[in-house]
């Protein structure tokens, strides 16, 4: 099976490419990428090639979401590996890395193998499990990193249960670094966040909702940078939400420390002003912050402080969200809106398209040591095709994800993925795209 994508703008940050070109896929791999490839191929081997005309579209290396929750095993009413994979490809993601907070937690080989088996059965997106740092993510005893790595994890994290014990975090960074496993840190000092519900500021004050101070995040970002520097290891900071965190990471990078960081689309799209409706779909952790924080996140994306955009896909069932605000679960079902919200950064002039694609594909691949995020000849045939102009309206009822919890329901968007190719096979195509 050969697939030829013709006439589109091709952006590949891994080889600093931004040009009109044709892309040929054979046997699941990208084999050729050149202008007017169609003409040369026509003369040799036409007939066997399926050609898709993608004029006015953008072809990029398959997008990678490095912070996703697929909920299986155990919480299938929120999401399954199959429904989450479907949501991924519908949102333009060819690969996702899934956090270990299933039930049970992915803290041992058998869970990792289960996730990989389910992902293979779903056969949509590439699914890369992330293993827990500590057993049951309880923060006291390290998991078997070596065993987990052999089973197929690509990184370690205790996800939403931050490692409060600094000594344990030190050991985790040291042990993981020696194995070449990245550690992803959810930075939240839970004594400082203290059962808080929204960003601590004017809105928490007037709404009478307990506040989560920005320092709850920043104190742990600072701690983890210090530990990584002292132990000569690296750490990846998850879902950066505050101006102070951006500043700390920027300073660390200036000193050439191997710190990487991601933010999520809602942190550069929404602020805590949205909480006034008490709509639980806006409840996330870390919480939506102030306009100053939002501006700092955009600056951090623009100057390279923030390496990646990851949507922190957190699907929930209705029963988790249709309750009093303080009892509601945190999170946004984000895979199917992440790219479109991020494309707004292009419309707003915050990032150029190649920079955005780097943050959604090439950089996550680099951070997770995946041989992905590139269109170089010989690499896996993972490709996302984006229509940058297409206008559409978010409708949670149309989500492939079981999680319909999105504060973006009804929002007008410009640009989206129209075709998602994984391993040379078309896994998602917008019906309006003529194939």
């Amino acid at each position, binding site marked *: 099976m050969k697939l030829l994508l013709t006439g589109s703008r091709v952006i590949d940050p891994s080889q600093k490419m931004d040009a009109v070109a044709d892309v040929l896929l054979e046997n699941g791999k990208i084999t050729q990428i050149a202008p007017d490839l169609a003409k040369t191929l026509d003369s040799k081997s036409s007939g066997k090639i399926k050609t898709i005309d993608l004029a006015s579209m953008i072809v990029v290396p398959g997008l990678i979401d490095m912070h996703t929750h697929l909920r299986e095993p155990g919480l299938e009413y929120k999401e399954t590996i199959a429904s989450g994979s479907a949501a991924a490809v519908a949102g333009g993601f060819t690969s996702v890395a899934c956090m270990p907070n299933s039930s049970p937690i992915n803290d041992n080989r058998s869970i990792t193998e289960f996730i990989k088996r389910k992902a293979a059965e779903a056969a949509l997106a590439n699914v890369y499990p992330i293993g827990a740092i500590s057993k049951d993510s309880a923060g006291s005893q390290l998991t078997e990193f070596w065993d987990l790595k052999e089973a197929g994890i690509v990184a370690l994290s205790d996800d939403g249960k931050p490692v409060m014990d600094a000594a344990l975090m030190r050991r985790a960074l040291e042990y993981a670094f020696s194995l070449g496993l990245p550690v992803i840190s959810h930075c939240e000092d839970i004594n400082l966040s203290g059962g808080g519900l929204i960003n*601590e*500021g*004017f809105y*928490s*004050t*007037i*709404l*009478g*909702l*307990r*506040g989560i*101070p920005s320092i709850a995040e920043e104190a742990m970002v600072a701690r983890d940078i210090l530990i990584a520097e002292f132990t000569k290891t690296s750490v990846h900071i998850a879902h950066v939400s505050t101006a102070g965190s951006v500043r700390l990471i920027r300073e660390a990078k200036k000193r050439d420390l191997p710190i990487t960081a991601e933010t999520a689309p809602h942190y550069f799209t929404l602020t805590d002003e949205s909480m006034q*409706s*008490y709509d639980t779909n806006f409840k996330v952790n870390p919480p939506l912050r102030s306009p100053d924080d939002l501006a700092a996140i955009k600056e951090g994306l623009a100057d390279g402080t923030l390496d990646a955009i990851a949507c922190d896909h957190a699907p929930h069932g209705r*029963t988790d969200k*249709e*309750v*009093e*605000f*303080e*009892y509601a679960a945190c999170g946004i079902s984000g895979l199917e809106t992440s790219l479109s919200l991020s494309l707004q950064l292009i419309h707003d002039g915050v990032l150029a398209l190649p920079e955005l694609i780097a943050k959604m594909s090439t950089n996550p691949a680099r951070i997770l040591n995946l041989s992905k995020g590139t269109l170089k000849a010989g690499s896996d045939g993972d490709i996302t095709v984006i229509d940058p102009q297409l206008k559409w309206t978010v409708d949670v009822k149309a989500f492939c994800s079981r999680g319909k919890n999105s504060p973006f329901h009804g929002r007008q968007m410009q640009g989206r993925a129209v075709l998602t190719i994984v391993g040379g096979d078309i896994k998602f195509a917008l019906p309006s795209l003529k194939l």
Partner: protein
Amino acid sequence: MKFEKKDILGMKDLSVDEINLILETAESFLEISTREIKKVPTLRGKSVINLFYEASTRTRTSFEIAGKRLSADTINISASTSSVVKGETLIDTARNLEAMNPDVIVIRHSAAGAPHMLAKLLRQSIINAGDGAHEHPTQALLDMMTIKEKKGRVAGLKVAIVGDIMHSRVARSNIYGLSKMGAKIVLAGPATMLPRNIEQMGVKVHSKLEDAIVDADVVMMLRIQLERQNQSIFPSLREYSQHYCLNRTNIKLAKKDVIVMHPGPINRGVEISPDIADDPSCSVILDQVNNGVAVRMALLYLLTGGNE
């Protein structure tokens, strides 16, 4: 003037005209409670459900008496635990009550925003009888009625609110309500009890009680919740009462004709000394309770279309 609001969720949402209408209506109802037969047929055939998820004596009784004096049928539901613990969601409970077709649901809940959730969902009028640390609009209205009764006006008065502002829905509702009516509001409390950016609500903030009550026309003392002592919000009741208790000495800093208010229940000797609380020349604490019934009668009346 017709009252257009479906619900009473907070002082934030009420206009000056609406507040005036509520207060005028309440004033006209005051007299009913002094009659020998304290009942009028105005709301005969209407039903009011008091859905209380938090303990309450004063507010619940006040709503019940208000309903009964207007001949409404009042039903009290006390849920000792939150809906989550009980197993039925708040929404399901509310939908079941809605199906029984009451006219007004009065709700008190420990979770801020709970009444707002019901208001969006149900066709009935919702009255917020206190939601978490958010709002307690009927308390603010009865406070305002009491201030008007004693001072003849609200505009231009200096009102000091002292204590645990952080956890106080009474403080928030009064800040919204009294500022709308033109009062000048000053807060005082230890820094740990002053929520972040509170000055953006248009109030002045002091850390010492003495600084806040200078020349005050009204001093409103807030209840210290004794269990907060364990949350490191203040070191001890002993220390708190030495610095934040309104007493014979520090009250001299306020205007001579100052009135002292408290939403109750009071901790005698903690935030207010017993002789101040019981001094009829300044304490209006029981007038507040009396006016509370009238304010709640007015709200039930206006929400059920009584003045149309």
